[in-house]
């Protein structure tokens, strides 16, 4: 279980499998699950009964904590964040938590400073500014 012990999201140690996998922001999950829920409603008379508790809880959760509601905005957020050489995981943490200051962003995603990608404070500041602009127009 050594892999388990070394796991630490702050240093981006989340295992190779998940590091390469596609990460989803809460707002993206909301779109996927909503779509699936609608499909279920059409094909079954009792969709509530068809859903697992895990599905139900996840849907409630992502709806409550989605920063962006509009699918176009969600796409824009991903596009903007992907300009900054972030790992998938980092991108999604930032998209989910929407930090407002550089200090807060680094506290949320400590790994953005430690990987030598030349992401200095100015770059992070600009990224947060771009994000806040989208939020305004959502």
């Amino acid at each position, binding site marked *: 279980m050594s892999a388990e012990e070394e796991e*630490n*999201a702050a240093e981006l140690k989340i295992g190779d499998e998940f590091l390469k996998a596609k*990460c*989803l922001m809460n707002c993206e999950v909301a779109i*996927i699950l909503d779509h699936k829920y609608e499909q279920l409603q059409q094909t079954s008379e009792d969709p509530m009964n068809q859903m697992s*508790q895990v599905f139900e809880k*996840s849907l409630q*959760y992502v709806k*409550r*904590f989605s920063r962006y509601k509009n699918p176009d905005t969600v796409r824009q957020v991903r596009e903007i964040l992907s300009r900054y050489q972030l790992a998938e995981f980092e991108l999604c943490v930032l998209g989910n938590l929407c930090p407002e200051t550089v200090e807060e962003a680094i506290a949320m995603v400590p790994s953005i400073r430690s990987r030598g990608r030349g992401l200095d404070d100015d770059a992070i500041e600009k990224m947060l500014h771009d994000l806040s602009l989208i939020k305004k127009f959502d």
Partner: protein
Amino acid sequence: MFFHIVLERNMQLHPRHFGRDLRPKLVSKLMKDVEGTCSGRHGFIVAITGVENVGNGLIRDGTGFVTFPVKYQCVVFRPFKGEILEAVVTMVNKMGFFAEAGPVQIFVSNHLIPDDMEFQSGDMPNYTTSDGSVKIQKESEVRLKIIGTRVDATEIFCIGTIKDDFLGVISDPTS
């Protein structure tokens, strides 16, 4: 964090389903079998979003059942140590509080709640700062950091902290 990943599973199908509906039968059985389950490695399987590939079936000796290797895409929720996320408080007591982030339960012990927050009992037990400006109670939304996970066969349980910079209450239900 939620992920979109590809998983593989060997599905056993009874011979009575062999026919033109074989694939739909296989897919609906797959959904019934795996959606809502949890494993330590991949976390909670929230929803299957597509089936990539159904391999060649293999007849089981003696039973007539056929095993198909099925590759499918799904949305999973997997919490990580060190991850920061938002959660909803579900229960508060003098030991600390429980919060939920999607399917996962997180416990925050009172040692990991800032020292200036005191436990207040009553019909709405809560943790409150001495000046009363910040309050954690049922239905409060908090931002916390996961510092430990415990995995058993069907559940993942997490320990969290709000005793760090930029963690704590985001909104409380009374305001």
